[in-house]
């Protein structure tokens, strides 16, 4: 019974030995095509000019840890969910709260905004026994009782850790503590495809932004990041280089690479076409785990939220830290760049959400004036000295 799947002549030992040899062979094949490292290629790229990123907007309204947030496609609205069972839809630009969905006695682990008009919420009952994923269609009526409209879609045998809509409001992809991911049809609640392969809880997933749009990547407590084909349910690529749980995975904007954030205090960058890890973002001073990550629009910057209450901004190509954002007073649970790349939203256990953006010096009137003053001053000094 325990030896199911063994062919004639195979034993558990022989299979294990074969597994080790194959793993080594895979590494060899990957290294054969490894003719250059990322930092070497990056030498030809110009250095980033000094980044000035400020956190200027704070969204207060949750009563407990904010566990998740997501942007709406209109680039200014966002949804956030918290451990106090509240889900709030904000217009982050005007700081208005547009909808509040109270779900008492539940931890709302995650939330996602659908491309068109729905919200997806992952709710876990008090002791994590609910394991439900519900979809709520939003409307213009602010006083509507949204909690009553929720429709249960996904169900796993363990907690649901992450959810994401595909290209429409009709399909939902979920990851779960039972080690599987699943694709659901929202209208009927039908399971369309399930993805088996992780040997421990799956904590995060992300859909590929490419033209074919048929793959997604998932990361879990087995320290593996797997790439899946949505059509066949097959695991097509796997990367095992982290030393602890992978908390978050996110695709590079071109869809040819992805980054992962892990409890081992590193973020790593994987090249899908070369099939290997190409960069590790770490620092001796960073010892707390990274719980979340996201790329800027061009892919040059990687924003990562850590358990030491900071957000580190990494230069993806050079592998160095470009800047660090302070402000949160507890762990950062989620960072997301807005759909048009203009701002970074971050959610934290300090029950607030913050919006940060690049403080471009170009349009700052005062700064330009001061620069002009300095220039004039320096010219005068020069002429003075020359005269002497």
């Amino acid at each position: 019974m325990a030896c199911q799947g063994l062919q004639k002549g195979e034993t558990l030992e022989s299979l294990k030995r074969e597994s080790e040899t194959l793993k080594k062979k895979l590494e060899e094949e990957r290294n054969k095509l490894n003719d250059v490292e990322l930092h070497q290629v990056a030498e030809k790229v110009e250095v980033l000019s000094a980044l000035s990123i400020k956190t200027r907007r704070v969204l207060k309204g949750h009563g407990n840890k904010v566990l998740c947030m997501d942007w709406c496609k209109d680039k200014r609205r966002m949804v956030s969910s918290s451990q106090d069972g509240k889900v709030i839809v904000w217009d982050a630009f005007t700081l208005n709260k547009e909808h509040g969905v109270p779900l008492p006695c539940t931890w709302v682990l995650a939330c996602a905004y659908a491309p068109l008009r729905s919200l997806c919420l992952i709710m876990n009952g008090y002791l994590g026994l609910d394991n439900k994923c519900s979809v709520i269609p939003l409307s213009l009526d602010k006083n509507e009782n949204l909690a009553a409209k929720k429709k249960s879609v996904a169900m796993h045998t363990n907690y649901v850790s992450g959810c994401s809509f595909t290209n429409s409001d009709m399909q939902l992809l979920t990851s779960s503590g039972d080690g599987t991911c699943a694709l659901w049809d929202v209208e009927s609640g039908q399971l369309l495809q399930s993805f088996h392969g992780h040997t421990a809880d799956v904590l995060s997933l992300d859909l590929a932004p490419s033209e074919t749009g048929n793959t997604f990547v998932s990361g879990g407590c087995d320290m593996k990041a797997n790439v899946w084909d949505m059509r066949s349910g097959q695991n097509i690529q796997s990367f095992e280089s982290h030393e602890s749980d992978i908390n978050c995975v996110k695709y590079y904007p071109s869809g040819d690479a992805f980054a992962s954030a892990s409890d081992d205090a590193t973020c790593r960058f994987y090249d899908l076409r070369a099939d290997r890890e190409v960069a590790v973002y770490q620092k001796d001073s960073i010892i707390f785990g990274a719980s979340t990550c996201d790329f800027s629009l061009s892919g040059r910057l990687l924003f990562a939220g850590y358990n030491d209450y900071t957000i580190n901004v990494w230069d993806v190509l050079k592998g160095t830290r470009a800047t660090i954002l302070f402000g949160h007073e507890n762990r950062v649970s989620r960072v997301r760049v807005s759909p048009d790349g203009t701002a970074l939203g971050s959610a934290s256990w300090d029950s607030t959400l913050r919006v940060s953006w690049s403080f471009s010096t170009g349009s700052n009137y005062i700064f330009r004036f001061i620069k002009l003053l300095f220039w004039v001053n320096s010219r005068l000094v020069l002429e003075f000295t020359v005269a002497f």
Partner: protein
Amino acid sequence: MLWIHSDSFHRLSLLLLFSFIHLCFQLESILLEMQDPKIGVKGTEQKLNISTIPHVIAGNDIIAWISNKMKTSTEEAQAFGTMLVAYGYIYPLQNHKKLVMCNDSSLYRFQTPYFWPTQKWVPDDSDYGIFTLLLHAVCLCFIQAHYNHLHEWLNHKWDFIVMQATEQYKAGKERKKPDRVVFDCQERAYWMVNRPPVSLSNSNMFYQQAIMRSKVKSSVSLGALVKYITTYKNHDPFLASCLPSNPWQTDHDAYWTLNMRRVEVPTKMRVERWSFSLFELLSDLRGRDDFKIFLKKEFSGENLAFWEAAEELKWGTASSMSTKAETIFKTFLAPGAPRWINIDGRTMGLTVKGLEHPHRYVLEAAQTHVFMLMKKDTFFRYLKSPTYKDIQKKALNPEQHNFSPANLEQNALNRSPGIHPIILWQQEEEEKAKVAAASAPVDVKAMMSKIDRKK
């Protein structure tokens, strides 16, 4: 480490333990009732090739029984039923990989108690060794404290033991084909629930496939990544300034208004972005509109129309799939179809055959073929076309905002609420309906017969 439990792991796990134990005992009593020949779910025999499987029950019967017994709605009963399947108390005969309870005539069987999840409390996996030892210790304390209840519990359990022993004895003694089939089904179902099907030989196969998969040289793939960054550098608001200004910084939302879905004249940056790749052009619906104008002039709009229809099929609801597939076949693939797409014979043959039993990805091959055609040929012709050059010339290049501190304060007080995304979505739907009605392929035959009738 899952942070959700790190806070009060021990307390939580004990609570979980007790509730799980309690739950399992309750579940087991319900299951006993379900299998009762008088008051339980009605079973039948199911023929499988030449042998017959006994005690087969239908999904809708189970759900009706649960709904009646527990006085709940059908939806809740279905959810409960799915839990029974997911945890391994009931297993599906058809489609054994999908562990859900369907409210139709799908067939199920009760799992033998030998394979019930509670039986798993024997340490057979070193990872769970400590956890199960803890379980046993707790059980012992629980039992010592509640001796009277223990007496009842043992009696309750005795029925299970007898039932299990009877079944195993029967199976061992006779080993008739149907019993063997049943046993195999049960065993397979147990492993489907308790050990996801990734055996060592499967993972070895994965490594072999991984070794053989074509890989690209690092210099090539990394070069492509760098190229992407360089191309989009000026479009990244964290690296270059937005024109006229970043709305978050100046509290003025001109940047968003100028880049809305249906602007008459797009901005220069937006038009430049369309030239980066066909994917960019199609992802921006305004760009897609411009591309359609070009295609109309070339009389080759059917490729894009097919691609759009295939996307709608792929991402649509499961219930709408067959109707959509039929429409697509009639419009694009049937011989003599009004918007017939020109794809190679092999792909056409495969697609048409697949459409007999349509599924989400039935148009995948044809869609990829059409996309590649557009990407390698039409897209580049578009970039050189007067349509694109025209829009490039017309495109706006807004002046950089220059707000004084007083202006900025004003802006902060007057932040515009913008148009609600749901209103925008409604407008989109209306526009789409208009376009669909206007471009519906003219049914020449119907028109001719109309004219004939008028005569």
